[in-house]
């Protein structure tokens, strides 16, 4: 029997190839003896790989490349505007993460080559997951994303919390993967296809009554909910975020969420679009629970990383609103908010990393107390980030939330829009607490540092201000303001991503 080679669009695949090729180069470069190569060239190569992926993604914009077409079947991976938007988000988050971990403890303990190679591999998994047109590719992407992240969480090997975070994420993530896989199997059983378009045709007649399909959809949403930290599957988030090295937390928070929501949009809004009347109410209820749980959970936190973890749960709830409505507007709103979320979170995490190294307070809220006076270059990005996360006007977060509420109202879920507004109101309580600590409290004297054990993040070598952290913080903060005032460039990209799924 003669087999025909599948048709592979190499140009379309190039953003992923750049990431994976970069991972191999970085891994091998990390083996070299020279300290200079390991500590300087390896992170630089990782940035080059992320940059190449970003550039190739821009080059492929509008091409709508369908890669891996075997004879007689559909493409398994599509690089349409949605995938490329996720690629951009992941690449930007990746570059920021490399800059944040440039002088961090984690890559030094886990060896530089491995650390950055794992980061690049995980990013490739995220792109594959967002672009998957096939359930098998989707699962492959999910695992390629998750497995390196489990390891990355535990890279500060001598700190117990880091190991705890890695182990918790591994166990809960595996549970999520198993549930997700079971759901995919049931969807396949109900519709007779692993391809999204086959599923769409298979589900068209079945919707509403098929138990197998409904169970499959339910389990799949649960599985993706684990990754996107949607309540009630969010329990790992605060511990995982707090324990992981802060640069890794930043990457996990923004990039994983982008990939999970990319996959959710594609699976629900393309493959299972005809079952929308069935899953939409369920998802809307999940969104409500997530918003309430996330915002209430954040209220009592004194650790900034835990606070941001709970806030990321709440933000996942807002994002779900865009998925629920299953409209082109909803997809655009979700993608827009994901991009905005990336900027504001990166600004916040860059400041946390900087203060972790400058003070003995770790990521406690005391570490940013009074920095409005002593370090305005860090205080402003964090202030902008907090106000934007809360959704105050003139920041990108406001436009993003406005857009999501617009989509929710347009899709007949006005009450969900109201829930978002109420959630944002609650969230002001804890975001403003951070702002108040920065501008209205005096800096906590470092004299008492002797009483406080020096945390693993604080490093005597890295006491002086570090330009790369300021660069990330200021650039992300500036972008948050820029897209809050002039949202149209990002708006156009998000609209193109929204149209790419072929919804109304």
């Amino acid at each position, binding site marked *: *029997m003669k*087999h025909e080679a599948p048709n592979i669009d190499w140009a379309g695949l190039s953003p992923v190839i750049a990431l994976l090729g970069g991972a*191999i180069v970085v*891994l091998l470069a990390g083996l070299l003896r020279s300290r200079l190569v390991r500590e300087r060239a390896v992170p630089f190569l990782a940035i080059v790989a992320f940059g190449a992926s970003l550039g190739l993604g821009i080059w492929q914009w509008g091409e709508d490349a369908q890669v891996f077409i075997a004879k007689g079947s559909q493409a398994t991976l599509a690089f349409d505007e949605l995938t490329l938007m996720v690629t951009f988000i992941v690449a930007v988050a990746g570059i920021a993460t490399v800059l944040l971990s440039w002088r961090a403890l984690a890559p030094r303990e886990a060896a530089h080559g491995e650390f950055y190679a794992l980061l690049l591999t995980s990013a490739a998994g995220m792109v594959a997951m967002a672009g998957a047109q096939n359930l098998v590719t989707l699962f492959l992407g999910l695992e390629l994303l998750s497995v390196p992240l489990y390891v990355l969480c535990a890279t500060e090997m001598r700190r117990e919390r880091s190991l705890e975070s890695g182990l918790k994420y591994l166990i809960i993530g595996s549970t999520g993967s198993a549930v997700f896989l079971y759901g995919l199997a049931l969807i396949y059983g109900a519709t007779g296809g692993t391809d999204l378009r086959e599923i769409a045709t298979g589900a068209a007649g079945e919707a509403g009554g098929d138990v197998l399909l409904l169970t499959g959809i339910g389990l799949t949403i649960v599985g993706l909910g684990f990754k996107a930290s949607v309540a009630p599957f969010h329990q790992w988030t605060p511990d995982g975020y707090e324990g992981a090295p802060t640069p890794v937390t930043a990457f996990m928070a923004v990039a994983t969420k982008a990939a999970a929501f990319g996959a959710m949009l594609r699976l629900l809004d393309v493959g299972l679009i005809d079952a929308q009347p*069935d899953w939409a109410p*369920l998802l809307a209820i999940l969104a409500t629970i997530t918003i309430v749980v996330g915002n209430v959970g954040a209220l009592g936190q004194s650790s900034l990383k835990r606070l941001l973890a709970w806030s990321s749960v709440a933000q996942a709830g807002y994002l779900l609103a865009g998925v629920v409505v299953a409209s082109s507007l909803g997809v655009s709103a979700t993608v827009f908010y994901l991009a905005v979320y990336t900027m504001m979170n990166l600004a916040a995490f860059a400041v946390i990393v900087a203060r972790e190294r400058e003070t003995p307070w770790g990521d406690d809220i005391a570490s940013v107390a009074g920095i409005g006076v002593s370090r305005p270059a860090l205080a402003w990005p964090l202030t902008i980030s907090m106000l934007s996360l809360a959704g105050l006007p003139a920041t990108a977060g406001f436009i993003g939330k406005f857009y999501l509420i617009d989509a929710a109202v347009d899709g007949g879920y006005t009450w969900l829009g109201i829930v978002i507004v109420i959630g944002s109101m609650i969230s002001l309580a804890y975001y403003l607490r951070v702002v108040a600590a920065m501008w209205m409290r005096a800096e906590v004297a470092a004299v008492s540092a002797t009483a406080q054990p020096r945390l693993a993040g604080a490093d005597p070598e890295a006491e002086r201000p570090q330009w790369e952290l300021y660069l990330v913080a200021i650039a992300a903060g500036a972008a948050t303001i820029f897209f809050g005032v002039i949202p149209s460039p990002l708006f156009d990209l998000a609209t193109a991503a929204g149209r790419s799924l072929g919804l109304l």
Partner: protein
Amino acid sequence: MLRTYLPAIVFVGLGTLVGAIFTMMNSWFGPKRKRTPTTFKQDPYECGLPSEVQQGFRFGISFYLIAMLFILFDIEVVFLYPVAVQLRAFGTFALIETIVFIALLVVAFVYVWRRGALEWR
């Protein structure tokens, strides 16, 4: 709308119930004898032979490392056999794919070698 989930709920409920019943059935209907855990019953099963492994037995971590590496490379080489047998049917595409695959294996090998995982410690 939500009524469509009724069968799913029944499905889950029935699954739990049936599972629970089957687990419990043994203790309900099985012969009830006083449980006397003898030393034989508590021994780890070793194919009928008396267990010789001491509890405090230690072995070098290198065994574990080498065994894991062996499994990794072993499984990857297994993938080469079907391609080798069917290479004519698959054509050049498969050949190129195999070369890429082997190149990646070599990268893994170089990594393992340079990291010193193959040295016996």
